[in-house]
C-alpha cells in the first residue's frame, strides 16, 4: 500500500470524462424517469387494491381513491423525501470529514438522534413533535461533533478507521439508549423507532419530512462551500472562507435531516454512504453537480428497498431499514474491496 498523508481525502477519480460542464444531463433525466416508475409501482402495491382504472374513474371507486390519498401517496412521498435528504446528508458528511465511508449511520449521528428521542420521551412525553425533533437534532449534532473531536485525536488516521470509530460510537450511544429504554420499559417502542419503517406513514404523520427537503434544497444552494471544505481547511482559509463556519453549517443540516428522518420513520442505514459513492463515479466530486444526482438516486434506492420489502412477504412487509441494511452493507463491502484492489 503506498503511504499517504493522514489527511488525504481518498476521493476516487471519476470513472469517465464528463461530457460538458453540467454533467450527463440526459442520464440524470433517465434516472429521474426510473424513480418515477418506482414511485408509481410503490403507489400501486399493497393489501388494498388500487389499480390505474380505479384512479381514472374515481367516482366508481371511492375507496381506492381514499386509500391513495390517505395512505399510499403520503407513504411514497415520505420514501422519496427520506431517501433524497439522507443521501445528501451523507454527501455533506463525506465532504466535511473528507472521508468516503462516513454517513449519518456510520458516524453515530443516527444513534445519538434516537438517544435524544428517548430522553425527550422520558422527560417530556407530551411535547409537540416539532420540539421532540428539535431535541433529537440537538443530540445528533452533539454526537456528530463528538465524533469529529475523537477523529482529531486519533493518531495515524487511516481512511478506514474513521467509519469504525463512528460505528463504535454509535454502538455506545445505542447501549446507553437501550439501557434507559429497558429501565423504563420502552424497549419495544425503541425498536419501532429505530428500524426504518414506513408502514405507519399516513397523511398527517410524515409532513415533517418536508422540513428535511427544505434543508436539502438549502444544501444545494450552499453546495459550493462544501466542495471547497472538502479540499481541506488550509485551502478553504486560503479562499477567504471560514472553515469552522462551513463545518458548523454542514453539521447542522446533517443533524437536522437525520433527526427528522429518525423521528418520523426511523433509521435507514447506508443510503448516505452507498448513493454518494456511486454518484461520485458518475459525475465526480463537485457538490453542486452531485446533489441532484444523489437526491434522485437516494430516492430511487429507498423506493426500491421499500418495494422489495413489501413484495417479498405479502401481505406482511419487511421494514425498509432492514432491506437497506442488507443491500447497503453488501454494496459497502464491494466498494471497500474495489478500492483496495486498486490501491494495494
Amino acid at each position: 500500500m503506498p503511504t499517504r498523508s493522514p489527511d488525504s481525502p481518498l476521493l476516487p477519480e471519476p470513472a469517465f470524462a464528463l461530457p460538458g460542464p453540467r454533467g450527463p444531463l440526459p442520464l440524470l433525466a433517465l434516472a429521474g424517469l426510473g424513480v418515477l416508475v418506482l414511485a408509481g409501482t410503490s403507489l400501486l402495491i399493497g393489501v388494498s387494491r388500487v389499480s390505474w382504472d380505479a384512479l381514472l374513474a374515481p367516482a366508481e371507486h371511492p375507496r381506492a381513491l381514499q386509500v391513495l390519498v390517505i395512505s399510499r401517496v403520503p407513504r411514497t412521498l415520505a420514501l422519496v423525501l427520506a431517501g433524497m435528504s439522507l443521501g445528501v446528508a451523507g454527501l455533506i458528511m463525506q465532504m466535511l470529514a473528507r472521508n468516503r465511508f462516513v454517513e449519518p449511520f456510520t458516524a453515530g449521528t443516527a444513534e445519538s438522534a434516537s438517544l435524544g428521542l428517548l430522553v425527550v420521551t422520558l422527560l417530556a412525553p407530551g411535547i409537540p413533535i416539532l420540539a421532540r425533533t428539535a431535541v433529537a437534532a440537538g443530540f445528533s449534532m452533539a454526537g456528530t461533533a463528538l465524533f469529529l473531536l475523537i477523529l482529531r485525536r486519533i493518531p495515524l488516521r487511516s481512511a478506514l478507521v474513521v467509519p469504525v470509530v463512528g460505528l463504535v460510537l454509535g454502538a455506545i450511544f445505542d447501549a446507553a439508549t437501550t439501557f434507559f429504554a429497558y429501565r423504563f420499559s420502552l424497549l419495544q417502542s425503541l425498536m419501532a423507532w429505530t428500524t426504518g419503517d414506513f408502514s405507519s406513514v399516513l397523511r398527517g404523520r410524515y409532513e415533517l419530512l418536508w422540513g428535511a427537503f427544505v434543508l436539502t434544497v438549502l444544501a444545494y444552494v450552499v453546495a459550493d462551500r462544501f466542495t471547497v471544505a472538502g479540499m481541506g481547511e488550509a485551502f478553504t482559509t486560503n479562499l477567504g472562507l471560514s472553515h469552522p463556519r462551513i463545518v458548523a453549517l454542514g453539521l447542522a443540516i446533517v443533524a437536522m435531516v437525520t433527526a427528522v428522518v429518525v423521528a418520523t420513520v426511523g433509521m435507514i442505514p447506508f443510503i448516505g454512504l452507498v448513493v454518494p459513492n456511486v454518484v461520485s463515479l458518475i459525475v465526480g466530486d463537485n457538490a453542486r453537480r452531485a446533489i441532484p444526482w444523489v437526491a434522485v438516486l437516494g430516492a430511487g434506492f429507498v423506493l426500491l428497498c421499500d418495494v422489495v420489502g413489501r413484495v417479498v412477504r405479502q401481505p406482511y412487509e419487511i421494514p425498509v431499514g432492514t432491506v437497506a441494511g442488507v443491500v447497503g452493507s453488501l454494496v459497502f463491502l464491494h466498494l471497500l474491496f474495489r478500492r483496495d484492489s486498486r490501491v494495494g
Partner: protein
Amino acid sequence: MSASALRLEGHERRLLLLGALAVLCVGVFMTVDAGGRWDFVLPFRARKVATVLLVGYAIAVSTVLFQTVTENRVLTPAIMGFDTLYVLLQTCLLFFLGSRTVASLDPRLLFAVEVAVMVLFSAVLHRWLFEGRGRSIHLLLLTGVVLGVLFRSLSTFLQRVIAPGEFAFLEDRFFASFNNPDPDLLAVSALMTVGASVLGLRLLHACDVLGLGRDVAISLGVDHRRTVSRLLAVVAVLVSVSTALVGPVTFFGLLVANLAHGLVRSHRHVHVLPAAVFLAVIGLLGGQLVLERVFSFGANLRVIIEFLGGLMFITLLMRGALR
C-alpha cells in the same frame, strides 16, 4: 523449603489476587440474601454461575487467542462478525428446516454442525483477509464491522419473514439468558468447551511464539498456517458456545483481554489466559451483583458491558493501538 521458593513474581501475585477475587465473587453470588431456602437457592444459582463461568471462559479465551493470531489488540472475534454469523446460522437453520425439524434433531449434532460451519467460515475469512497481500489492518477491521452489520440485517430480515411462533422458538432456544439457562444446552456447551480447551492446551506454547509475530514464529520453527487454523477452530467453538448461551456481546472480550494484558504484564499465555478468565468472571458476576443488590436494576449487564467496552475500544484507537 527456603523463603525464595515461596516468593512470588509480580505477575503471579496479581494473578492469584484476581483468582481470589473471582472466587469471592462466586461465593458472594451463591450465598447473598439466600433467606434460608438453601435447597432451592443453591441449585438455582449454581446453574446461573455455571453459565457465567462458561460464557466468561469462552469469551475471554477466544478473544485472547484471536488477538494473538491476528497480532492485534483491537480485533476480537465479535468485531469480525463471528457471533452475528452464529445468530444468522441459527436463523437460516430454522428458516429452511422449520421449528419442528430443528426440535427433533439431537441438539449435540446440531451444535456440532453449526460449529463446523463456523470453523469453515473462519478458515475462509482468514485465508481471504489475513493472507491477502497489502491488506491493511484497517480494511480488515472495517470489513469485520460491516460483515457484522450484514449478518445482523440478514438475520432480522429472515426473522421478519418467518412466522412469529417460529421466531419465539428461535429466541427461546438460542438465547437463554444468564437467568434461565437450559440444562441441555449448558451440558453440550460445557462438553464443547472442554474439547476445544484440550486442543488449545497443546498449542499454548506455540501461542507464545506466535505472539512474537508471523515472521519470527516461522523462523523459530512454528508451522504458522497449521497452528493458526487450529487456533481459529478453537476460537470458533468458543464463540459459538458463548453466543449460544447468551447471544452476541460485542465488546466484552475486548475489555477483558486488554485489561488482562495490562494487569498481568506478561506475554506468556499461561498468565494472560487465566487472568482474562478471572476478569471475565469478576466482570460478569461482580457486575451482576452490583447491579442487582446496589442499584436493584435487574439483568441488564450486557448493555453496560457494551458501553464500557465501546469506550475502551475508542480509547485504544486514540492511543494508537492500531500501529
